[in-house]
């Protein structure tokens, strides 16, 4: 198969805009973020991102990309566009006020000897 056959093929199967010539990225699939729960893990952990046409395909791709070495037993995928994130510009108003409130840690209490694991 020639590469020109391939690009022609992909341009019409929802697999990209086929704009190799223009140098534009081919894929117009949306970005998904992947969260994985390991075997003994407690919660899902963000492991990376991928492109997929829809959520079902994203789940399959996540399985193929991120669980090849037996890393997980449960996968979540979510469209990156659906995540509302804090902005780096707001870093100070958001997080600086908690930086000097050491009394919010429970370190000013006497822990009774009979209470373990604290």
């Amino acid at each position: 198969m020639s590469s020109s056959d391939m690009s022609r093929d992909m341009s019409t199967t929802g697999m990209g805009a086929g704009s190799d010539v223009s140098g534009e990225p081919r894929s117009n699939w949306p970005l998904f973020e992947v969260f994985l729960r390991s075997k003994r893990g407690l919660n899902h952990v963000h492991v990376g991102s991928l492109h997929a046409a829809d959520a079902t395909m994203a789940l399959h791709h996540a399985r193929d990309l991120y669980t090849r070495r037996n890393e997980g037993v449960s996968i979540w995928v979510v469209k990156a566009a659906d995540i509302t994130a804090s902005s780096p510009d707001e870093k100070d108003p958001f997080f600086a006020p908690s930086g000097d409130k050491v009394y919010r840690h429970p370190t000013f209490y006497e822990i009774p000897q009979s209470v373990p694991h604290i």
Partner: protein
Amino acid sequence: MGFDTAYEAISEESDSGHRWAFGTGFTDPLAGVDTTVPAGVDGADLAAYCLMLGDDALIMSHRLQQWLARAPELEEETALANVALDLLGQARLLLTRAGRADGSGRTEDDYAFDRTEREFRNVRMAEVTDVDFAGLIARLLVFSTWRLALLGRLRESADPVLAAVAAQGVNELTYHRDYAAGWTIRLGDGTDYSRQRMQAGLAAVAPLVDELFVPSVVEQRLAGVAVNPEDLRPECDAVLAQVLAAARLDWPQVYGLSGVSGKAGRDGVHTEAMGYLLAELQSVARALPEATW
């Protein structure tokens, strides 16, 4: 690390979690399986049968590997590589089993790299080239549907090694079939052009389907150990009909590809594509017979 096998080293459970990124809890599919040839089973026949199933996996795996760096998307490339690796794993176990069963002591590498074209026993569907991605998907759909039906029954085999290989393979093939069916539906039920290409892919693979269900002499002699491929047809037809209906595709009405004097892949009679495939697969091993990697 003081472990006898790689499996022991990476199956060790650790509470520290520092190896989490690499995963743990791997299992050896042949752990605890009796590898002696069962009484009453002809070793030569068993070896021949292992070669049939092993060669199907090896050759199909090689064709899939040829898609690497050519797949339409990075994510699809990894998916195809995973499928290829699953099949390669099955091939390794089966070819190793063949060397044990016939008493020759040949290794998986001996079988993969030192046999001539006429000595390979894979069905011809495994060896043909794909015109495009849709062609690959059509072939993978039929191949994985058929092999899943086969391994599903092989779990009951009188040979414990074949049963163990099948038990592991069923999970793998279930995913392969799911992957191929997903793409068949996307392309078939997609644009007019993608549907046309998918239909063309099915037309390319359809002549090779009948061969999958023809029992060889070896399979007939190994009743109880081998699966009779004739029994697989109803299940395969039903699954394919269901997928094609969802994809709004029609099964092409074509004649089966004839063999040579009634002989086909299982007899070592292959298509022209096989010679080129083996040349690529074997050239390094033949040029450097003592090399290890």
